[in-house]
């Protein structure tokens, strides 16, 4: 089989039939009955519709090159048995004469030079170069008939003619291959702007992504992540956090209680009970962040949600000061809104911290500069209120069995929705719980 045609269908020649490569194929058990066309293995090497590979008229260059070594070796001295088995009757010693060889060369070269396509060229190669009936092959057979003194000379002449024809062939092959490639590559052009995402990516929820991001910042500093139940006991959510039985936050206007009312169960109103659980269960020192879902007695609307995410941090160690809190919050603020923004602490009140403070971060949009206002982000305040913080109240430490004279600690907390709303310019808090995929997909997979 001529190499060029063998390579015409690259899918036949490139991918070996699995049975051919296996250790002894057993055709008897392959495939199944003809009626049901037989189960056909889905395979990746089926031609794709529309791809140039399905055009069997177009040989693949790589494949044709790979087949080159299969050609019979035309060099003298590496005679193949077939040439010795040649029919002596057809030997014509005159074919090795210089004029004859020159004539053969000229004819062959002329024909090759005008070959119209690769198939014709392949035929010409057989005709003039490699075929059993090619003049050079016939002349070669005459070599043996010459008297030895003439053989060497005739052999050289024959080789020279062969090499010349081969050179002509190679030159034309290169030309035609280049032409063919140029044409095929044009033909194979596709519109790469066709939309191609047949399995689009989904998305992480922006609050999950933000929580993970902030958690990573603290984990990098050496904090660990602590978690706790969302349906929580009053003692962890209020009592141990220095919110006495009559604290206003306990009002059923603010807190969702689990039925029956006397059960002491509620939906945690902050992630702070995780701080209590952490102090009760881990050896000191403690450095944790506590992300999670919390609940308030608010109906869903543009600015309220009964469910919202929080992230709190807690550090309890010997020698912890408010200066440490300030430094930690600066890292935190940068993680949230970018570096280079000033922070400030404003005295405030929380039952579970003393002293207490609100954390403000300079508005990333206007930086408090009147020239950049009015500012939609901060309402011209110049500051964004991020969350509450303070030194852990001694009563909290005592309730957890920590000696407040020896240990001190800080805690801070923030609402994820609010931070995400500012960071991503979200206007309605309900977007976080509605689950609209247009909202969700805009945030991508979270990295």
């Amino acid at each position, binding site marked *: 089989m001529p190499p060029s045609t063998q390579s015409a269908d690259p899918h036949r020649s490139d991918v070996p039939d699995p049975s051919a490569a*296996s250790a002894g194929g057993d055709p008897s058990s392959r495939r199944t009955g003809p009626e049901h066309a037989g189960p056909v293995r889905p395979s990746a090497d089926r031609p794709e519709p529309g791809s140039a590979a399905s055009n069997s008229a177009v040989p693949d260059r790589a494949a044709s090159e790979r087949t080159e070594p299969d050609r019979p070796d035309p060099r003298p001295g590496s005679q193949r048995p077939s040439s010795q088995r040649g029919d002596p009757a057809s030997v014509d010693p005159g074919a090795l004469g210089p004029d004859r060889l020159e004539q053969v060369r000229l004819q062959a070269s002329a024909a090759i030079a005008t070959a119209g396509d690769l198939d014709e060229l392949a035929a010409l190669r057989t005709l003039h170069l490699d075929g059993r009936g090619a003049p050079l092959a016939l002349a070669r057979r005459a070599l043996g008939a010459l008297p030895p003194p003439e053989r060497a000379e005739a052999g050289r002449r024959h080789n020279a003619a062969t090499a010349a024809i081969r050179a002509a062939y190679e030159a034309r092959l290169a030309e035609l291959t280049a032409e063919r490639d140029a044409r095929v590559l044009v033909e194979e052009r596709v519109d790469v702007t066709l939309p191609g995402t047949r399995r689009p990516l989904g998305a992480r929820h922006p609050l999950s992504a933000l929580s993970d991001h902030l958690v990573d910042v603290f984990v990098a500093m050496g904090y660990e992540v602590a978690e706790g139940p969302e349906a929580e006991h009053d003692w962890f959510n209020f009592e141990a956090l220095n919110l006495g039985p009559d604290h206003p936050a306990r009002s059923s206007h603010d807190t969702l209680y689990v039925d029956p009312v006397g059960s002491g169960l509620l939906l945690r109103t902050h992630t702070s009970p995780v701080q209590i659980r952490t102090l009760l269960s881990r050896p000191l020192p403690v450095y944790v962040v506590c992300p999670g879902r919390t609940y308030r007695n608010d109906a869903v609307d543009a600015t309220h949600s009964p469910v919202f995410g929080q992230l709190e941090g807690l550090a309890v160690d010997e020698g912890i000061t408010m200066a440490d809190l300030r430094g930690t919050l600066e890292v935190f603020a940068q993680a949230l809104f970018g570096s280079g923004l000033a922070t400030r602490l404003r005295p405030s009140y929380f039952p579970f911290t003393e002293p207490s403070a609100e954390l403000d971060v300079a508005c990333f949009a206007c930086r408090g500069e009147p020239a950049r206002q009015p500012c939609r982000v901060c309402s011209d305040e110049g500051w964004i209120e991020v969350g509450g913080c303070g030194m852990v109240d001694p009563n909290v430490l005592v309730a957890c069995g920590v000696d407040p004279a020896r240990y001190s600690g800080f805690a801070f907390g923030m609402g994820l929705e609010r931070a995400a709303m500012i960071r991503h310019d979200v206007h309605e808090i309900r977007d976080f719980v509605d689950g609209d995929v247009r909202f969700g997909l805009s945030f991508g997979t*979270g990295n």
Partner: protein
Amino acid sequence: MKIVMSWLREAVPALPPAKAVADALIRAGFEVEAVEPVGHDLAGVVVGEVVSIEIVRTKKKDVRWVQVRVAEAATRGVICGAFNFAVGDRVAVALPGAVLPGGFTITARRTYGQLSEGMICSASELGIGDDHGGILVLPPDTPVGTDVAELLDLADDVLDIAVTPDRGYGLSVRGIAREAAAAFGLPFDDPAEAASVPVPAGRGDDRERAVPEQTASGQTASGQAGAGQTGAGQTGAGQDAAGYPVVVEDTAACSRYVARVVTGVRPDAVTPLRLARRLALSGMRPISVPVDVTNLIMLGLGQPLHAFDRAKLSGPIVVRRAREGERLVTLDGVKRELDPEDLVIADGSGPVALAGVMGGASTEISADTTEILIEAAHFDPVAVARTARRHQLGSEASRRFERGVDPALAPAAAHAALRLLTELAGATAEAGVTDIDHRPAPRLITFPLAETARLGGRPYPAEIVRRRLAEVGCAVADTITGAGTGDGVGDGTEAIADAVAPAGADGDSVGDGALLVVPPSWRPDLTRPADLVEEVIRLEGYDTIPVTLPRLPAGRGLTRGQRIRRAVGTALAHQGYVEVLTVPFVGDDTPDRLGLTSDDTRAAVVRIANPIAEDAANLRTTLLPGLFAAAIRNIGRGQADLALFETGLVFRATATAATPPTPAVDRRPDDAEIAALNAVLPEQPRLVAVVLTGRREPAGWWGPGQPATWQDAIDAAHTVAAATGVDLTVTADALTPWHPGRCARLSADGQVVGYAGELHPRVIAAYGLPARACAMELDLDTVIEIALARPPVTAPAVSTYPPADRDIALVVEAGVPVARVTEALRRGAGDLLEALTLFDVYEGSQIGEGKRSLAFGLRLRAVDRTLTAQEANAARDVAIAEATRLTGAVLRT
């Protein structure tokens, strides 16, 4: 709390402009939410005298053509529609060119046949009140031509301050003035002390001196208390025969009760404009002199007062808890059933007021009232808060009592009220003072000097600590018997001696590095060194705290479980699922809609006692209803091809243990106590779930896309499992809410961890989901537990020898699950089997009714050699034989 700057300046005259004061207050912890300038935009309004009035009659209405004299020799004609003034009255005239609030400019204009050269103004037109009733008539002695804005001090600023609940004293001009003075280092004259100046018309000068000082001593208190308790029915007689009789039954809930009486209140008295405006700017409506006076005292000093019509009181006042069945009609006209816990003020007729919350209608002062009993009391914050909450009745008074009112303030506040009533309503103060005083002894705090630096993170020298504590009103001394400790705290020594004496200073010696501190009476929030630290640090400024980072020990990073959870979320997102976080409340009908039987753990709902909505009163037991709702919301908005996922806790009621006692908070609860608390919590496993509707592969130029099927739901489970490193086993099941023929039970390590498949048509109908909607739900906690228990992966020996591939087709009964066939093949093929692929499933006439043809590819390979055809065929044949034995499979030929 709205603070009028001009009022604030009365206490601290040297204060800078309002904006600077606001900034300083914010820095000190008082959140100024707004600085509202008022009256700054008023110009060109002068005092005019009405010279003559002429009625102009028109068809529509009558107006008046008024001549006003606005300067010595200048009279202007003005058309005016109001009739509430007469010739000779002084009025405010806006001349042409004048500007009224809102930038409204006055021009001369021709109207009613006259050239009206200006406008006679009402109070609301001047921006000083909401009284549209008529023209503002000024006092008769007001000089003509005076600029009204200057005259009435109209240019002012109002600070709107959100006061934190620990700082009740901040709900007064007095309290804010003290903070402002401290912020700017200015002297502060306590208005409460000014208020103690004797009433000019009063008759009981000797009595006045008995009014206790701010830091009144405990001894005085107990002395009076004794009289109050023993003198039931004739209370006060011991101190002053003329004092109104008061009995305080519950002295814990009412530690101070001061009553004063005024007589001869002129019913026609009017609150002067200046004070009315002050009230209005503070957010309160001027009503009558007695009411306005009580409000002014409350706003100025922070002491809520109540004014009873003395004539309507019968017999002694008794401060007690309400009795079962008692009722009270409060000032808002609501008849209230009282609770035995409610603290009430009662007289012979029964309750006449809810103590500290609201007065009763029966003793309310009216336009005819001439005798008034002023009550200035201190009620327990908790008692007031509970009553206010119980009756859903918040008031300005209750707001202050809940946050703590200065118990030393009552006499001075009553006194100040009397003086104002005397001045404004011609009243006469009766000399008798009832003051029943059961205040506890002042607290004494031993305050280590190093404590401020220990928490603050920078040095705080002793003199700064002392000065700052003095600024907030603390009495400070070095030792119990110590001499004066310097400027401003000299009188502190007395207070400390007073505080120590009743406490019995039994060798409570103070070391070198400590101060003895008695917090002021208006600061019930200061009880511990940490509270004092906050005062020092905040007055010094939080911005003076350095910025450092703690030196942490090395952390262990995220736990494996936490990392796996993230991986699950990421994997699903990368598979096209959009994460949602839904509201976890569901309605009572959810178990029915899901088709759950009552013994299903997913029917064991946890109920909210005070749900936001009655139709969503239960916590979710499965993530699916929330996902369904999100899907339907999306479909309603035009997005029909959905792949949603959610990860979160669900709540399942457990057989509840008895409610454990609440542990104390003055120590660590022991492990048994903690365990008891945890035992009553509902189960809260973390699940992951997906819901699929419409197409999984979108339609596009490449074709019509692929609908989401039960396979995609199972595939999602495999995605989760793969992210955790756990292998899932799939078995057919028929659990609701899934389609009984298209429900896969998912197991790992022998445990059922979830289900996946197409939803039951009935559930689809119940929720209004599109047909063929699919879902998956896995117990993520359990899957992660299984993942964590797995030993490290053992690497396979990767053979470099060529594989032998054998394809077979088996015919089995259609009901035989593929999983069973593959299991049999695997078992039969043994270790040589590298991979098993099902590449075709066929059902049809050619293989017979009720049968299925399954075509498998077996890839066989040995680690150590090239398999011979015989070896490969033998393995294949054993696999087939095993499938035949276990599943009845027949080799298709």
